[in-house]
C-alpha cells in the first residue's frame, strides 16, 4: 500500500497537511507520529484515534450506519411495523408497494412470539402512540402474508443479538487464553499455541453441526443458548493468537520491567499496563469477529439448524426467499431485499473493522480482510 492511496480527497491546506507535505510524510507515517505525540504530551490517546477514524470516510459512515440500524433493531417493537409473525394464508403474495401509494393501514394485530419484559413495554407504548396504524407493505409480503420489512427488522434483531453474544463469548475465552499463554510463555505457551494450531485446522462448521445434531433436539430455547455458546467458543482462536502475540511482545518491554523494579505487583502491572495495550487490538478483532459470527448464524439458520420458525433471522429469511421461487411465480423481493440488507451490514462491519485496524493497530500491514 502506498501512502497516496490513503490521501484525503480535496487537498485542504490545514496546518496538519502543510506540516505533512513539508516533512514529506505519508499519511500513515504522519498519523503514527501524531499519536506518538499525543501519548508523549499526556493527552488521551483515544481522542487522537477518534479523529483518525473520522478521517476514514467509509469507516466513519459505516459506524453511523451500524449505529442507526442497531437502534432500529433494538426499538423494533416501538416502530409502527406490521406484526412479523401474524400468518394469513389467504392473503395474496404482495409485491413491494411504494410508500407514496399505500402509506399505511389500520389493521395492526399484536401477534408475536413470547417477548421479554422490555419488549412488552415497548409494544404497549407503540400501541399507545400509533393505535392500530401500521406501515404498508413497502417491501412486499411473503407467501404466508407476513410483511417483509417487519421481518427484516425483527430478523436483524436476532442476527445482531447472536453476533454480539457470540463475539462476547469469543472475547472472554480468547483474551484469557491469549493472556495466559503470552504472560507465562515457555512450555505452557508452546503447548497452548500448538493446541490452537490443531484446532484451527479442524473443519469447525461440521463439528458444530454435529454438536447441534446431538444436543439440539431438546427445547428450542436450550438449543438457542447452546448455539450462542458454541458460536462464541469457535471464534476465539484468532483472538487468542493476536492477544498472545501482543502480550508476549510486551513481556520484554522496558516499561514493564521498570514497573516491576519499582515494586509493582504482577497483578497491578497486568491491569495497569496490559489492559491499555491489549485493548485496541481486542477491539479490532471483536469488530472483525462480529460479521463472521453473523454470517455463521445465517448459514446455520439457512440450513434449518439455527433459529427456529416463529422467530426470524436473516438466514431464515434468505432460506424462505430461496424456497419461494418456482417456475410459476418469481417473488424476487423475497430474495433481493434480505440479501441487500445482509450484504450492506456485513460490508459496513468489514469496512469499520478495516478502518479500526488501521487506526488502532498501526503495525499491521494493510491486507485484504478475510
Amino acid at each position, binding site marked *: 500500500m502506498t501512502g497516496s492511496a490513503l490521501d484525503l480527497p480535496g487537498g485542504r491546506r490545514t496546518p496538519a497537511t502543510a506540516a505533512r507535505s513539508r516533512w514529506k510524510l505519508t499519511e500513515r507515517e504522519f498519523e503514527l507520529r501524531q499519536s506518538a505525540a499525543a501519548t508523549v504530551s499526556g493527552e488521551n490517546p483515544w481522542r487522537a484515534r477518534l479523529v483518525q477514524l473520522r478521517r476514514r470516510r467509509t469507516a466513519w459512515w459505516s459506524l453511523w450506519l451500524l449505529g442507526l440500524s442497531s437502534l432500529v433493531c433494538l426499538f423494533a417493537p416501538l416502530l409502527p411495523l406490521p406484526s412479523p409473525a401474524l400468518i394469513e394464508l389467504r392473503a395474496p403474495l404482495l409485491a413491494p408497494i411504494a410508500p407514496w401509494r399505500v402509506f399505511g393501514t389500520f389493521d395492526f394485530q399484536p401477534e408475536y412470539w413470547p417477548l421479554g419484559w422490555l419488549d412488552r413495554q415497548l409494544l404497549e407504548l407503540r400501541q399507545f402512540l400509533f393505535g392500530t396504524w401500521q406501515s404498508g407493505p413497502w417491501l412486499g409480503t411473503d407467501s404466508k402474508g407476513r410483511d417483509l420489512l417487519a421481518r427484516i427488522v425483527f430478523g436483524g434483531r436476532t442476527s445482531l443479538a447472536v453476533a454480539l453474544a457470540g463475539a462476547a463469548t469469543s472475547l472472554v475465552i480468547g483474551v484469557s487464553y491469549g493472556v495466559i499463554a503470552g504472560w507465562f510463555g515457555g512450555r505452557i505457551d508452546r503447548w497452548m499455541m500448538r493446541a490452537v494450531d490443531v484446532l484451527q485446522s479442524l473443519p469447525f462448521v461440521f463439528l458444530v453441526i454435529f454438536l447441534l445434531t446431538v444436543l439440539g*433436539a431438546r427445547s428450542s430455547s436450550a438449543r438457542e443458548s447452546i448455539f450462542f455458546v458454541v458460536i462464541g467458543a469457535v471464534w476465539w482462536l484468532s483472538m487468542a493468537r493476536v492477544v498472545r502475540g501482543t502480550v508476549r511482545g510486551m513481556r520484554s518491554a522496558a516499561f514493564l520491567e521498570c514497573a516491576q523494579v519499582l515494586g509493582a505487583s504482577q497483578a497491578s502491572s497486568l491491569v495497569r499496563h496490559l489492559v491499555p495495550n491489549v485493548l485496541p487490538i481486542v477491539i479490532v478483532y471483536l469488530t472483525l469477529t462480529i460479521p463472521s459470527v453473523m454470517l455463521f448464524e445465517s448459514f446455520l439458520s439457512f440450513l434449518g439448524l439455527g433459529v427456529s420458525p416463529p422467530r426470524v433471522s436473516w438466514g431464515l429469511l434468505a432460506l424462505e426467499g*430461496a424456497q419461494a421461487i418456482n417456475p410459476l411465480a418469481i417473488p424476487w423481493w423475497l430474495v433481493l431485499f434480505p440479501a441487500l440488507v445482509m450484504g450492506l451490514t456485513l460490508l459496513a462491519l468489514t469496512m469499520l473493522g478495516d478502518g479500526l485496524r488501521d487506526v488502532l493497530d498501526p503495525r499491521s500491514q494493510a491486507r485484504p480482510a478475510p
Partner: protein
Amino acid sequence: MIRAALRHLAGLVISVVIVLAVSFALMHAVPGGPFDAERGLHPEIEANLARAYHLDWPVWKQFLQYIGPFNLGPDGWLGTGADRFGGVLALDFGPSLRHRDYDVADILAASLPVSFQLGALALAWSVPLGILLGTLAAARAGTWLDALLRVLTTTGIVLPGFVIASLSLLVFAFAWPLFPVAGWSSLRHMVLPAFALGAPCATYVARLTRSGVLENLQLDFVRTAKGKGLGRGAVIWRHALRSALLPVVAYLGPASAAILTGSLVVEKIFFLPGAGTHFVNSALNRDYTLALGVTLVYTVLVFCLNALADLLASFLDPRVGGRQES
C-alpha cells in the same frame, strides 16, 4: 520438510482421536436415544433394537467397536461370531439410523463423488480466474478496471455463499432460463452450482493476488527486470506474479475447507445428491452415525488439504520451511 509432514500427521491423529472420543461421549451422554422419535415402541422391540446396535454393551466396548476392526463378537472380547461391523479404521461407520438397510459407508460412497466433483469444479474455475483478475487489477492499479474489480471482489467477500447461489438461481435459471434449476446429470447442471460455490473463493484469491503483485512491483528484483529492458507484460506476468502466488498456494488449504463448507448450502439450494445434503438431513433428523461419519471424513480431508497446501507452500518458498514462530 519431512519433519513438517510428520508434525502435521501427529496433529491429524491427535485431533481425529479427540473428535472421535468427544463426539462418541456426547452421543452417549445425552439422554434420549435416536429411537425416541418413534413413539410407543414395545419394550421387547426396544431391547431388540438395542441389541442389534450393541447399545446394551458397556460404553468403552462400544467405543472400541466403533473405532477399530476389533471384531468384538457377541460372546466377548474377540469373540467368534463374526460381526459385520468393522469400525472406523476399516472405513465402516456403522449402519445409518434413519435410512433403513443402508450403511453410512454406502451412502458416503454414493454421495461423496458428487460433492468432490462439485468442489473440484469450483476450485478449477475460481483459482485461475482469481489469479488472472487479481494480476489484471494490479497491473492497471488505479484505473476504472481496478475499481470495477474491487467492487466485484468486495461483493463476493461480503455476500454469503447461499445468497449468491439463490441470486444466481433467480437470474440465470428463472428470470432468464439459461441453466436447469436442479439436478446433477450433465455439464449444464453443474454450471450454476460450481459458479455459486467458487465465487467467494475467486474473489478472495483475486484480492490476495492483487496485493501480492502490487507489493512485488515495488521491490528491487522487479526494478532489475525492468532495467534489463523487459516489457511491462513480461515483468508482471513472469516476475511479479510468481512470488505473489505463494500466499495463494497457502490459501488453497483454507479455500478447500471453505468450499466443502459452502457445498452444504449449495447442495441444498440446487437439490444435489451430495454428501452435504445427507449431512444436513442427518443433522435435522438426528441420524448420529451418518452425521459422525461425514464429520470424520471431512475432518480428515480438510486436515490433509491444509497440510498439503502448507507443505506445497514451504516447498515453493524455502523461507517458509521449518517451524514458524509468530
